[in-house]
Every structure is written in structure tokens, then in C-alpha cells.
């Protein structure tokens, strides 16, 4: 593999990892606060649709982003209502949200645009432009570092940089602020938070809302950054992969960056190298397709070991039995 190919694979990795990273950090906030969320997929999907739909109608990607976040927040509110207020089963609520998003997006899309659950293709200001970082062209001739800067680091949409920035921000919020301390505590021992005079419900709703916000960014990136419009089921299981990455990262922000990058890399490699020929034996495309999943299992079994989730995760906080 020559240097340029490597750069392109890594470039592709960044693009593929971004929605994963945003969703993974979304899940991180929620699960750190003790609310399991397998509805990441649904929230991303809803956000993808509404951001594309509103961007298509208004021609503004920013309005689209707001709409996407609003849609994702609405689903978060349902999840919060079910799992925090009414102490329902968080897994079921997540499953329901995935179904809801999968059905509603197409239903609404069909009702609004009549294009078979698709939005019209976005043009111009309806999409996130790629940002060229300063001096990208000037520096390009510099050997090694030049192309890395110009090709790999520069030239992504603002959401990519936002996602990357969210990693230290998440770390800082969780480990350096009062809110973060309380949020982590409520995922470990809600009764400790409660007896310390802090509202468990308020904290958990805040966490779920942040989760909605980040899923909104992820969806918006999918439909209006990576793509120029929405198609049905366009998240294609990324919510689940993000969940896998979250466990892989053991619920830590920097590890999440690593895990999502790894998954992005595996996908990028699988995309580029199909049917590898190994001295006469061709590896069938199906193997390459399944490779990210196989490797996930291998990595989990071989290197990660037991991942211990936040102790109060998945359990509603009940004072009176």
C-alpha cells in the first residue's frame, strides 16, 4: 500500500468514523447516567431525515441541523419518559424507538415528498460544505506532512471537527465539572445522589437530552454531510456499531475515539479491498464484508476482556419497592 492510498483509506476512515463517534459519545452520556440506550440508531435516523427534509425545503443546512436535533430530542424525551419517569424497561423503549424512527421517517417522507421515503437531493447550501483549513494548499508540497495536512486533516465538514472536538469536551465535562461528577454518580449509585440532595430525575433527563443532541449531529452529518439527502434506513446499523464501540471503549471518551476510529478503519479497509487474492486463493467478498464484525468479536474476546458498565445502568431508580 503506497502512501497516497494509505492517506485515502485514513481519509475515508475519518468520514466513516464521525457518525459512529458522535453516536458513541451520545450513548456515553446516556449510559454514564445509568440509562441504557439501544435507540441510538433510531435517533440518528430521525435526525437524518428531518435535517435533510428541512434542509431540502428551506435550502439551509443549519435549519436542517436544528430540525434534526429537535427530532432526535423528541425521541430522547420519549425514552426519558419511559425509562426515567415511568421506570419502564430501557431496552424495550430503545427497541420501540428504533421501530418508530424506521417507520415514521419513511411515512412522513412519503407524505411530504412522495418520493418513496426519500428526500429530494440536496444542493448548494442544503449540504455541509467541506472546510479547507488555512494553508492547506500552501503546505501540500511539503513531503509527508503536507499531504497529511491537506488531504487528511483539511477538507472535512464542520461536523467532523465538531465530533473530534467533542471528545476532549466530553472528557472535560465528565471529569472536571460538577455536572460531570453528578452525572457519573447517578449512573453508579443514584441513591447516593438522591441522599446528597440532587435530583436523580433531573440529571438523567439532562444526560438523555445530551444524548439526543449528539445523535442529532450524527444524523445530520449522515444525511447532509456525507450524503445529499435521506434514504430509508440510511443509518444501516451504525447505531448498533456505535454501541459496540461504547462497550469496547469501556464508557470512556478517549477510548471511544479509538474504538470508533478502529471501526471506521475496518470499514474503510473492507470497502477498498474486496476479493483479496492471496497467492491463488481469493478471499470472497463476503468475508471482507463480514470482516469488521469478525474482527470486533476477535478484539472483544482477545483484548478487551470484561467490560463493566456503570453499576446502576439499565435499572430504573426506585425508592419504594
Amino acid at each position, binding site marked *: 500500500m503506497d502512501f497516497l492510498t494509505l492517506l485515502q483509506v485514513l481519509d475515508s476512515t475519518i468520514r466513516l468514523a464521525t457518525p459512529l463517534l458522535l453516536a458513541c459519545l451520545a450513548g456515553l452520556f446516556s449510559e454514564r447516567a445509568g440509562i441504557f440506550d439501544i435507540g441510538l440508531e433510531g435517533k440518528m435516523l430521525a435526525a437524518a431525515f428531518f435535517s435533510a427534509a428541512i434542509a431540502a425545503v428551506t435550502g439551509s443546512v443549519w435549519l436542517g441541523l436544528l430540525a434534526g436535533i429537535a427530532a432526535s430530542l423528541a425521541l430522547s424525551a420519549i425514552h426519558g419518559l419511559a425509562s426515567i419517569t415511568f421506570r419502564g424497561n430501557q431496552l424495550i*423503549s430503545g*427497541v*420501540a424507538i428504533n421501530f418508530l424512527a424506521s417507520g415514521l421517517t*419513511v*411515512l412522513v417522507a412519503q407524505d411530504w415528498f412522495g418520493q418513496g421515503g426519500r428526500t429530494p437531493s440536496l444542493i448548494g447550501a442544503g449540504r455541509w460544505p467541506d472546510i479547507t483549513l488555512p494553508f492547506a494548499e500552501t503546505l501540500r508540497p511539503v513531503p509527508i506532512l503536507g499531504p497529511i495536512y491537506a488531504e487528511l486533516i483539511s477538507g472535512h465538514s464542520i461536523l467532523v471537527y465538531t465530533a473530534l472536538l467533542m471528545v476532549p469536551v466530553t472528557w472535560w465535562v465528565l471529569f472536571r465539572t460538577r455536572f460531570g461528577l453528578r452525572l457519573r454518580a447517578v449512573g453508579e449509585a443514584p441513591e447516593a445522589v438522591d441522599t446528597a440532595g440532587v435530583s436523580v430525575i433531573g440529571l438523567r433527563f439532562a444526560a438523555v437530552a445530551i444524548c439526543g443532541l449528539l445523535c442529532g449531529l450524527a444524523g445530520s452529518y449522515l444525511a447532509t454531510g456525507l450524503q445529499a439527502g435521506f434514504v430509508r434506513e440510511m443509518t444501516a446499523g451504525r447505531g448498533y456499531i456505535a454501541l459496540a464501540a461504547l462497550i469496547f471503549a469501556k464508557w470512556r471518551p478517549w477510548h471511544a475515539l479509538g474504538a470508533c476510529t478502529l471501526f471506521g478503519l475496518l470499514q474503510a479497509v473492507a470497502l477498498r479491498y474486496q476479493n483479496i487474492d492471496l497467492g491463488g486463493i481469493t478471499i470472497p467478498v*463476503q468475508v471482507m464484508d463480514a470482516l469488521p464484525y469478525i474482527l470486533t468479536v476477535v478484539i*472483544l474476546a482477545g483484548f478487551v476482556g470484561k467490560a463493566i458498565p456503570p453499576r446502576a445502568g439499565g435499572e430504573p431508580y426506585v425508592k419504594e419497592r
Partner: protein
Amino acid sequence: MDKMPAWADAILVPLISLLLAAILSAGVILAIGENPIEAFRLMVDGALMRSTGWGYTLYYATNFIFTGLAVAVAFHARLFNIGGEGQATVGGLGVALVCLYLPWPHWSLALVAACIGAAAFGALWALIPAYLQAKRGSHIVITTIMFNFIAAALLNYVLVNLLRPAGQMDPATEVFPPATHLPTFQDMFATADNPLFRGAPANVTFFLALIACVAVWVLIWRTRLGYEIRAQGHSESAARYAGISPTRIIVVAMLISGGLAGLMSVNTTMGEAERLVLNATEGAGFIGIAVALMGRNHPFGVFLAAILFGFLYQGGAELALWTNIPRELIVVIQALVILFTGALDNMVRMPLERLFSRRRAA
């Protein structure tokens, strides 16, 4: 002890939840400019008022019973098996191999062998995640999700490269020999002047599903193994105290779970398609999660929930057939049913409990 009578919890709560889901669904139908009452009438008419409708409803229900039971059994051991989809997919491979490569004199023998094949392949597909969970602590939720993707790739490879008859376009096997065709409800119940269940895919596998319900009930609540599975599910430290090996229970429970999921493919592959097609499971593995959770992991609850989802599937198909309502409406209705009966049930239960305790106090 309890805050309200058991019957209210078991019947009233789900009924009111369903009603709420129905009301919201009606709102959605109104919002897309259709008539909800007419839609509901069409669904009931198509799914429940004709024998053929029942034939479809029960066909779908059969799938959901198997995948629901699969999730439920694993759940009793506190294992969340999201891999029903993959296990059923691979189970289908077992059915196909049995039906295609062994000569069968009669369908009943073929059925027994196909069940063994399906269950064995499904169990095998669950074995690796189970082993990794037991021995390496790899999170079973992730590994089973990954195995769903891997199963799809595997089936694709096998169908495209190995089992597809030369020249056939469809990535599917050839049609199974006639001796393996299972009797459908039509074969069983239709008479010359009363063509019951005409063309419907419901077949003997439905009765297998009923047997599976009873078997799972006996297993969980009547056998030693079930007792140990429940003990392990409730408290691993208690299980260790009693000399129950966690590894053994995890592996055995997942094998049973995977086997049950695999059995679903007998219905779709041998009973309906009579050949192995690419996406025979069609998300039934995921519906199984909802079915199990709604059915409170009890075989009877799973049975009822499976019938409900079968009705939704078939009613939705009829709806799409005769109206302009997109098929996704059914997905939305399913979502609302899952949400209200499974996750928001306390929203209904809490006021009811207050009502009952006030009545008792009075």
C-alpha cells in the same frame, strides 16, 4: 401483598396500553390523510375474519413464537440474545441441507430431521457468543449483533456460490423435493366444499411452536435445569453458592435459545418457501425481542404477543394491499404497541394501582 389484583396487572394493564397505542396509531393514520376506522376494519377483516387471513396471522405468529421463546429462555439466565436473526438464518441452512441432500420417504420424518438440523445450526451459531461470554466475558449483546451480520454474509456466500442451481438468478436454493413439503392448514382443514385456509402459508410448524411453548414452560418452571437457569439469572453469586456452574448455564441456555431461534426457519424455509431464500428471517429475530419482553418472558405471554404481532403483520399487509397507506405505517404501529405495552406500561399501571388501593381502602 400486591397493590392490585393479579388479573388487573395481567389483563387490564396490557389492554389499556394497547388501546393507547391504537389511539395514537389512529392519529398517525389521520395525519397522513386516511381514515383510521376504515383502516382498522380492513386489518381486522383481512387478518381475522377469513380463514386465509388467520392462515397468514398464524404463520407470522409461528415465527414470532420461536424467536420470542428464544429471547425469553436466554433472558431467564440474564442473557440478552439479540442474535435470533442470525441464529434463524443459519438454522435455515440446516433445514436446507437436510431437505436437499437426504432422501426422505415422508414429510414427517423430514420434519423431525429438519427440526434437528435447524436447532443444531441455530444452537451452533449461538455457541460462540455464549462461550466467549462465559470464558472471556465478551459482552453477549455485542457478539450476537456481530454474529447477525456474519450470518448474513455466510448465507449470502453459501447461496450465491454453493447452493444456487446453475443459471438461476435468485440467490436461493432449488425447491425442496415434494416429499419434504409440509402439510399446510389448507391440506389439513380444507374440505371439498369448504376451501379453508386457501393458499395461506400456516402449516404444521404452528403446532410445533405450541409444543415449544409448553416445552419451554416445563423447562423453565418444572425441571432442574430451568431451576438452575433461573437461579443463575437472578443471582450469579447464589448460583455459585449452590454449586451451579455459571459457564455451563450460560452455554446451555444460549444453546437452547439459539436452537429455538433456529427452529423458526423450519416454518419459513420448509413450511412456506420450500426452498432457502436470502432474507427468510425478515427481522423476526428482532420482533422476537419485543415479543418476549411484552410477554414478560413467559411462554403464554410470548404466545399472545406473537399472535398480536402476527395480526399486525397480516393486517398491515391487507392494508397495503387495498389502500394507499405505505407499508411503513405498520412499523409505526408496531413501535407504538411495543412502546406502550413494553416500556410505558407503568404509565397505565401507576394510576390503576392508586385506583385499586383507594377502592380497597374505602
